Each structure stands twice: as C-alpha cells, then as structure tokens.
C-alpha cells in the first residue's frame, strides 16, 4: 500500500518526537551540564532529549518500513472554537466576573458542534451558569465576583 509521507502516521509521529527531542537538547545547552558525580541542571534534560530523539528516529523508520495512513477525520471547527472559548473564559474571569465568563464559555464552546441550536444551548448555558454559581460560589465558597465591580 502506498501512503504519501504527509499521511504517514508513524513518520509524522517520529518527526514530532525528533523535533521536540532536538529542541530540548538545544535549549539545555544553556544549562550547566555538570558531571555524573554532581549533575548540573542540564544533565537530565540533555539525556532525555537524546532519548526522545532516538525514539523518534525509530518510530520514523518504522513508519517508512510499514506505512500506516492517519485514517481518521477531524473537525477543524472544534479545533479552532474550543481554544477560543477557553481564551474568552480566561479574559472574562479576570475582567467581567464569573457569570458572564461561564455563560459565554458554554455558548461559544457549543458552537464547535455542527448541531448547534441557539435555543437549546442558550438554555443549557443559563442552567449551567446557575448550577456553577450554586456549586462553586455559594457551595464551595470560591472567591470570584459574580459580576466584576461588585
């Protein structure tokens, strides 16, 4: 079976490991290496970076010898929207308060599903916000303002 490199699962995984391993070794150059007797802060990271790189090379070769396609689909929509919803939550928590943060987090996250329904998800967001306020703020006493400025 012919699998293009761009679709070759293990080839890509190997590349990822090699990139991270080499990156770690490169960054660890700035940390004193020390000796086996007195290890510096650079010793462990350098050795580990080397091991991860080595593993990456083996995985990469495995991928060339026995190519396996990625073989699954993904939702670009979810990949973009879910981090955005988390970002909005973080910003609102610090500037607008718990209630708007939770409400919008839920509503924006819901957009990640192709079955988004404005009516259903608004009700869900409202219910969840109320539940979270009851559980986290009133129940567990977390010290967040419901609305900033209060």
């Amino acid at each position, binding site marked *: 079976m012919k699998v293009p490199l761009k679709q070759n*699962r293990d080839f890509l995984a190997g590349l990822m*490991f090699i990139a991270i391993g080499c990156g770690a070794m490169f960054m660890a150059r700035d940390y004193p290496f020390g000796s086996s007797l007195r290890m510096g802060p650079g010793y*462990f990271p350098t050795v580990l970076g080397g091991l991860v790189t080595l*593993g990456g090379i083996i995985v990469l070769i495995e991928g060339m010898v026995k190519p396996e396609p990625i073989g699954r689909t*993904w939702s670009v929509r979810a990949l973009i929207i879910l981090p955005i919803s988390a970002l909005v939550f973080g910003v609102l928590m610090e500037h607008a308060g718990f209630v708007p943060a939770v409400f919008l987090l839920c509503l924006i996250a819901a957009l990640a599903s192709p079955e988004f329904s404005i009516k259903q998800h608004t009700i869900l967001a409202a219910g*969840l916000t109320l539940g979270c306020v009851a559980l986290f703020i009133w129940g567990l006493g977390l010290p967040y303002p419901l609305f900033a400025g209060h």
Partner: protein
Amino acid sequence: MELFNNLILGFSVALTLQNLLYCFIGVFLGTLIGVLPGIGPLATIAMLLPLTFNVSAVSALIMLAGIYYGAQYGGSTTAILVNLPGEVSAVVTTLDGYQMARQGRAGPALAIAAIASFFAGTVCTLLIALFGPPLAEVALEFGAAEYFSLMLMGLVTAAVLAQGDMVKSLTMVGLGLLTGIVGTDVNSGMARFSFGFPELTDGIGFIIIAVGVFAIGEIVSNLGEDEVEKREVFTSKIGSLMPTVQDLKHSFFPIVRGTMMGAFLGVLPGTGPAIAAFSSYMLEKKLSKDPDSFGKGNIAGVAAPEAANNADAQCKFIPTLTLGIPGSAVMALMLGALTIQGIAPGPQVMTQKPDLFWGLVASMWVGNFMLVILNLPLVGLWVTLLKVPYRLMFPSIMVFSCVGVYSTNNAAFDVYMASIFGVIGFVWAVLKCQPAPLLLGFVLGPLMEENLRRALLISRGDPTVFFTRPISLGFMIVTVVILLIMILPAVRAKREAIAD
C-alpha cells in the same frame, strides 16, 4: 489481630457521616461518568481535584477513589444495554453482555456484572489490607538507588503494557519526563524550559495536562468522528434482574479467576483495567469446554472481565499507597491529591497517617456495597442518561474543565495552557501516541531526577550503584527482562494483534 484492629480503625473513619457522604458522591459520580461514553474517570478526577482543597485528605481520597472504581461498574451498564463501552475497560463486556441483552437476558447480565464487581472489590479490599503493610515496611528501607530503579521499572512496564506501538509509548514516557522538568531546578534554582514565561517557572500543573489532554482533547476527538453511532437501548427489555441458579453456577469460577487475574495485573504498573478484562476473557475462552459460545451471550464472558477490571482498578492502589509509585495515570492523580493536601506520598504514609490509609481501604468496601445498590435497582435511571445528546454534554464538560483548572491557581494562564494541551492531545490521538504513559513520566520526572542525582552523589558518581545493591539490581533485572520479552518478534506480533 493487628489487621483486625487496623480494619476497625478504617471502618471507624469510613463510617463517619461526612466520609459516607463523600464516598456516596464519589461512587455516584463514578457510575454517572462510567455510564456516559465520552468522559472517563481520569478527566473527571482531574476536573474535581481542585474542589478537594477544602476537604480533609481522607475525605478527598475516598471521593476520588470512589469515582475511579465506580466508573468500572457504570461502564458495564452501557456495554450490556447499548453495545457501546461506557469506559474503555468495558469493551470486552460488550461482546457477550450485549448478546445476552439481545436474547432478553439483560437483567441477569447486569446482575452478574455487579455481583462479579462486588466480589472482586471485596477480595481486593482484603488484599490491600493484607499486603499493604508488609510492602510498605520493605519500602521504608529503600534508598535513592532503589527508588530510581523502581521508578524506571514502573515506567518501562507501563509503556510496554500500554496499548499501541511500544517504541511510541516509551518515547511518550521520555516526553513526559521532559515535560516534568519544566520549571525551577530544585538544586540550582535555575528555570528550565520556561520559554520566558514567569508562570512556567513553577512547572506545569498536572491538572492542566490531565484536563487538557483527557477532557478537552477528548472533546475535539469526539467532535471529529465521522458519524455518531446509532444507539439501540434495551431499556424496556431488562426484565427480571435475578440470575438463575444455573447462571450463578456458570459464573462462579470465572469470577474467581477474573479477580485473581485482575489483582495480579493490577499490582503491575501500567496495565489498566482494559488489559485485565481482556486477558481474563481470553483465559475463560481457553478454559471453556465450549469456546464457540463466547461472543454469543455466554455469561462467563460477562462475569470474568467485570471481576477483572474492578480487581485491577482497586489493586492499583497497592503500589500507589505503599510505595508512593503510581501504577497508572489515574493513580498519579491520586498522589497529586495527596500532595495538594501537604502529604508526601510514600511508604511512610501508612505509619504516619494510619487513619488515611485504613479509612480509604475500608471506604472501598463500603463504596462497593453502595455501588451494587446504586447500579441494580436504579439501572433505569442511568439508562435515561444515555439519551442526553453529546451536543449538550460536551459544553458542560468544557465548563467544568475550565472552572476546575482556573480555580487551582486562580490563573487564566492555566486555562490557556489546558486548551493548548487539548490541541496537542488531539494531535497525539491522530498520530496514535498514547498519552497515559506520558502522564506517568510527567509525574515521576522530577522524582526520578532527584533520586538519580542523590544516588550518584552518595556513590561518588559510580553508576554501578544501581546494580550492586540487591533490591535495586532486582528491579533492573525485571526491567531488562520485560524489555527483552517484548522485543521477541512473536510476542510483539501478538501484542500488536491485541491492540487492533
């Protein structure tokens, strides 16, 4: 008699009103997420961990443990009624459990699953009580060299026994160790891999990684699935729950064997309940006079794996509580809960905090008892939950994840990190790189570096110290033997066949 006194102490802790309540909350939540596919105990425990700050250590552990073994009960309900594993560990139960449901015997299948789990839970509670103290006593003698070798052995077995490609899992362990290094080096005070972010000088919290990869990453993964599976729920056909005498006879020995298999595999690091369930299913099939009946509704095919996965889940606590070495990603979170409470995990926990250890052990038996009651008469309630569509479930998971992560340090930065790990976790899922070994490596990374340094310092830089001290040598030999066995082409081929 000491055991007897210890158990009395344990029950006196576990049976206080407060701890009973936490135990109930734990097993209730565990059943809930066990029934629901798409959310597992790991993500749930990670999300709820920050909530345990204000609770006493023993109550927190009782609740979190309840979530874990409760999920093993709940997972079988979905497996039997919907042919969909509620948890990974219940995959095998779908084979015969669902067939029994189709034959109108869903009730006995559910009952046997609960009975098997309860039996396994009871036996394993006793095993922990019996073997915990002597193991901890041995572990108290461990020095830095022994700890390093033990952790190495744990990580290697975890990677080797994990599902999927072995080299990938081992490399993921390495990656986890590297991730664990992020932050300030304790010996030199130097910030490593902090990329200039002051937030990273304290290291990455394991809650962030666990929630990111296992909760948010899972959502991304699930939303990317081609089509949502059509669920056929056998709600109206559960019928009588009572198994016949014949059923009980047929499942007695499978339950005993499943429990033994699960308990044995449970003590090994990295196996996970799914492997225990699968192994015991294969064993029953091999021992059976009529192997062809498996997969067609043989009750032994429900009893054995259900006993095994619960036994495995509970015996995972043995190395965790006595040695302070987590055998699985969930156990790493349990140790995290201890650390949050200001208790350093290790063999000294048992002697310094006997109420904690024995209270937890006793609560497991109480929890298992509650689970039988929760799961059998209330099975209808759980089944209605399955009708909640995923489009309503995942925003809720997202909310609990973000609030949980935020409340750990009151830092928005942590939430951003978690969502980044969500994306990374999804990439790993696409490339079939198992995240569980990574989480273990992450937790053990700083400990391993510390013990490696200390061992070499004591031996004046002589690396043979790991091979001259007998206990350490033993761990090293086991590690090498496991690696060698796994490299054998025959074993490797079989292992990959199982993974598929």
